[in-house]
């Protein structure tokens, strides 16, 4: 069974279709890249699959659960790296991850290792409000990993990262895939992502380009 199954999905903002009927599948333990121009609807697609917003038409299931009717089940198994980074500005990097761990009912034990993985261990006790653009991206990536998701949705994961950061993302994606995680990634770094991906779809004006 496909890890992500999207059928004629549609979503509108006001009087404009951001997604106008998109269908595709992502098999388990594979990496798919979503391409497309600015405003093509990539973020909208990922936000629907991550159950952050509701679709206006069609259907989609993630890890076997419907994104409208079984939102809580979908949420248990997916994590999304979004344009919004979901960080508390007035908490430190470590506290941000601790809050997530607490809400997931996880132990706080693995947090330091995660911070080291994204090269933020030296800044673990600094407030997020003092972080540079790339450091925020790193922390929100760590936040995604902390959730140990079965399906990962990455919206522009390379944005604001430095070259070692690019390599970090690549390595983690390979690792996740080898452990059976499914990854859907929207990015403009086509060449870099192509090396990782098993499949590619291109959106154009809310539809899959021919």
């Amino acid at each position, binding site marked *: 069974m496909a890890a992500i199954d999207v059928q004629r*999905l549609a979503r509108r903002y006001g009087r404009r*279709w951001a997604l106008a*009927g998109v269908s595709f599948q992502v098999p388990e333990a594979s990496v798919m890249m979503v391409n497309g121009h600015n405003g093509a609807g990539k973020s909208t697609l990922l936000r629907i699959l991550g159950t952050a917003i509701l679709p206006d038409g069609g259907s989609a299931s993630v890890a076997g659960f419907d994104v409208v009717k079984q939102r809580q089940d979908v949420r248990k198994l997916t994590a999304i790296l979004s344009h919004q980074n979901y960080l508390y500005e007035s908490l430190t990097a470590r506290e941000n991850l601790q809050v997530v761990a607490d809400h997931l009912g996880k132990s706080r034990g693995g947090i330091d290792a995660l911070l080291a993985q994204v090269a933020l261990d030296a800044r673990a006790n600094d407030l997020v409000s003092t972080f540079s653009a790339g450091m925020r991206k790193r922390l929100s990536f760590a936040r995604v990993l902390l959730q140990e998701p079965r399906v990962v949705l990455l919206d522009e994961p390379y944005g604001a990262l430095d070259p070692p950061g690019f390599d970090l993302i690549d390595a983690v994606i390979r690792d996740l895939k080898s452990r059976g995680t499914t990854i859907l990634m929207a990015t403009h770094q086509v060449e870099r992502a192509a090396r990782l991906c098993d499949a590619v779809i291109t959106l154009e004006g809310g539809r899959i380009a021919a």
Partner: protein
Amino acid sequence: MKTAWIFVVLGVAFLVAGSYLGLFVAPAEEYMGNVQRIMYVHVPTAWNWMLAVLYAFGAAIAFLFTANAKWDARLEAGLEVSTLLAFLLCCQGSIWAKPTWGVWWDWDPRLTSVAVLLFASIGIIALRGFVDDPHRRAVWSAVATIIASVDLPIVYYSVKWWNSLHQQQSSPQTVSSQFHLPLRLNAFGVLFLMIGFIMLRTRVANMNRARETALPPMTEHAGEIA
């Protein structure tokens, strides 16, 4: 559409008849004189206001359970008509209060609960103006309407308690039978008018929503729109 206009016409007819009787046929009241004739619109407005609030409350509950945009349109109509009625009620009441009680306003249970709900519904209407996303707008106004309606009996009883020492209202039972007919006519007049308005307003709301959600056609690939 047609029925709505029939209701409006009926309402106006009843109101004209009732007001004619109330103003020119019924005798003036003993203590208050002619001012008292405001009662013929005041009391019907009050009754129908309560009905409108109930209607909005029902629509809000129905929306939360069905998520059907139709109920949102009804909620919008009910809310606005009830706001209008509450406003009229306050105006009529104030005009009446000035000569009888010597003040425009007084904090008695009825007045307070009307004022509270008037402001609450204005707040909800304002909220609707700020939310662009139609779904959110509907959910939020339904939630706010429910809380405000639940609030209504609480306000009524708490204020009643609060002011229990100096009640100023005379009781409706003292109304003599000569006043009944115009009162009844007007009550139905306002009721029909209100039903007509709510129907018309619902239509406008549905049309607004349709315009707001008017879309260029999607390809045949697209799924059904909920």
